[in-house]
């Protein structure tokens, strides 16, 4: 208790390894285990063949039983270490299993068939990071189709979001007109009305527009994000009006001012919004779940969720597909980590 308190109450002004430093490291290491452990376990498991996945207790690393091709047999046979009756240990390949006995042969001399009790043999296994689950999963799950859908939705929705939101933010920050504040307040007030609250009528509107079972129904509706308008407007307010006025004197149209002066200057805010938009769309679940009911239009998230329902026992495929689904986000995080974390820390949005 005392160490916990010291740890919580210490400041940065000390040198050397104090007791609270040790407590910090212990806490962070345990935390790392809890936070990263499940992910490591997922990745390791995704390489295991089905026979390994159903084993209890599970092994940490993915193993595969060694096989050997024996003359006279078409399929490769599984290798075992067999303790013979006289106590010697031989490597034998299993031909077939009948009840509690296995019929086995010596790969070097396949003529003789030995009858071995099941508890006499030990499978020979080796570490194996095979992509078998992945290749079979991609086929069974139709990964590339869902990937294309998701990629299309993410890219188009992000471009549309950036364009529409930045235009609105420009209009709301750089012009004086009647109703400006009213529009801004209405947009901001819907920050607190999430989709989950208007599920039923949103579905009605989308089917009336004819966009149910259409990727447009996933792309367009959420493009007018209040968060994006707010973020960009606050940023554009800091751009001095004199810049715009001098461009007007030079004869630039308002449109040219928007995309040649204001847009480039709002670059950092646009980058933050772009990253968030990609994250939102890639991970979006509830909206596509409602709009899309045709299997071939599913996004990765919806597809993955229905895949786990269909193939409840086929963990080998489900795990591999889960890894593939989280891979793009992981790569993006590796490269854009600084932008993502500072973006969240400064805007407080997600």
């Amino acid at each position, binding site marked *: 208790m005392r160490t916990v308190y010291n*740890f*919580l*109450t210490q400041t*940065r*002004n000390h040198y050397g390894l104090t007791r609270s*430093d040790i407590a*910090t490291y212990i806490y*962070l290491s345990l*935390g790392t285990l809890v*936070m990263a452990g499940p*992910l490591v376990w*997922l990745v390791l498991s995704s390489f295991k063949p089905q026979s390994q996945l159903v*084993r*209890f*207790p599970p092994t940490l690393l993915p193993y595969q039983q060694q096989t050997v091709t024996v003359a006279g047999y078409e399929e490769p046979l599984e290798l075992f270490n067999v303790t013979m009756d006289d106590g010697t240990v031989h490597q034998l390949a299993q031909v077939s299993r009948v009840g509690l006995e296995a019929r086995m042969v010596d790969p070097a001399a396949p003529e003789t068939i030995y009858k071995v009790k099941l508890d006499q043999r030990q499978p020979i296994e080796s570490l194996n990071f095979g992509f078998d689950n992945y290749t079979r999963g991609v086929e069974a799950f139709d990964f590339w189709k869902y990937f294309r859908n998701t990629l299309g939705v993410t890219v188009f929705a992000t471009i549309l979001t950036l364009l529409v939101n930045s*235009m*609105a933010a420009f*209009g*709301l920050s750089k012009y*004086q*007109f009647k109703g400006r504040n009213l529009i801004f307040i209405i947009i901001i007030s*819907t920050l607190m*009305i*999430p989709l*989950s*609250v*208007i*599920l*039923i*009528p949103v579905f*009605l*509107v989308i089917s009336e527009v004819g966009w149910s079972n259409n990727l447009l129904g996933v792309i*367009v509706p959420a*493009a*007018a994000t209040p968060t994006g308008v707010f973020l960009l407007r606050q940023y554009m307010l800091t751009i001095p009006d004199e*810049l715009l006025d001098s*461009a007007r*004197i030079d004869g630039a149209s*308002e*449109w*040219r001012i928007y995309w040649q*002066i204001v847009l*480039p200057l709002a670059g950092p805010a646009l980058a933050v919004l772009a990253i968030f938009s990609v994250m939102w769309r890639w*991970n979006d*679940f509830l909206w596509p779940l409602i709009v899309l009911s045709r299997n071939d239009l599913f996004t990765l*998230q919806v597809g993955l*969720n229905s895949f*786990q329902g269909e193939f409840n026992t086929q963990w080998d495929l*489900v795990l591999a597909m*889960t890894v593939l689904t*989280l891979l793009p*986000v992981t790569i*993006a*995080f590796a490269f854009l*980590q600084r932008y993502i*974390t500072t973006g*969240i*820390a400064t805007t*407080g949005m*997600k």
Partner: protein
Amino acid sequence: MASVPVTKSSTAYRRRRPDWLTDVLDWIMHPVELIFVPIQRRFGTQKMAWFFVLPNLIIFAIFIMLPMLLNFYYAFTGSTNFFPQDRPFVGTSNFTTLLTCENFLQPVTCEQDIFWRAVWNTGVYVFFEVGGIVVISLITAVALNQRIKARGFFRSIFFYPVLLSPVVVALIWKWILQRDGVLNAIIVALGGERVPFLLNSEWARIWVIVVSIWAQMGFYTLILLAGLQAIPPEYYEAAQIDGASHRNTFRYITLPLLMPTMLVVLVLSLIRAVQVFDQSFALTGGGPGTATTYIVQYIYNTGFTSSSRQAGLAAAASVILAAVLMILTLTQLRLGRRTEENS
């Protein structure tokens, strides 16, 4: 004089931007100019604000404002018909159906017992999830704010799950929690009995909370960390000169100065927790029974999946949920203003 900054800043920007990007942008944006210039000549500079605001406003009006109004219409009309013109007006009967209860503490006595179960489930969930997030995020943020090695590494580790989708998070944990999963293997290795974590009501409730905290705490940790780093170091120096103990420094400097950030974390996590859906939906599907059915899932089930789609009931439930969220957000704004005035 005034024209100097234009060229300066735009050329400065152009240098950083790759040429092909500029070309593509020019290529897309230039045609708009051809339509734009005549319009601007006709209506004048100031009116062009509408041109910029309109696209956003149209999408917004059709897909957010209109549904919000329709939601009220649904809430006050009945029958299982989906299209508004086929739905008779029923007054407040949807609300009375939802709110009729002999004893609000016992969902069984309510007309819509699942709704009240969902309400209570959500209440318990919100209490523990938000509590857990605030406490754990604070401890983690303080730990990450120490002078330690590999700070960036630890921060990334704690933050990474935030980026994962609810479905992926649910699958990761389902795999760990299943009957033959690694957690049961550890329990058996330690001499215990296997626990059917997701098939037992109490355990399922606990794990939905734990998994949510696991997936979201990094986000709030980051906000708190930013708050901690914004505290001016002079305060700590002064406290050190005065000989203040660690404990007093934390209590009288760190905590009060971190309060505004703590409030942000509290309210943001509250608003999100009240809407819990996708995580639990993918992890437990609301079960076993109705143990992890929360309000949004009640709305989803009632409106979309049950054999008799009762859109009116679902809409009425969402109006109630919206009211709760509104109160929470207004509280946030209120608290935010007060702390601003104080500082």
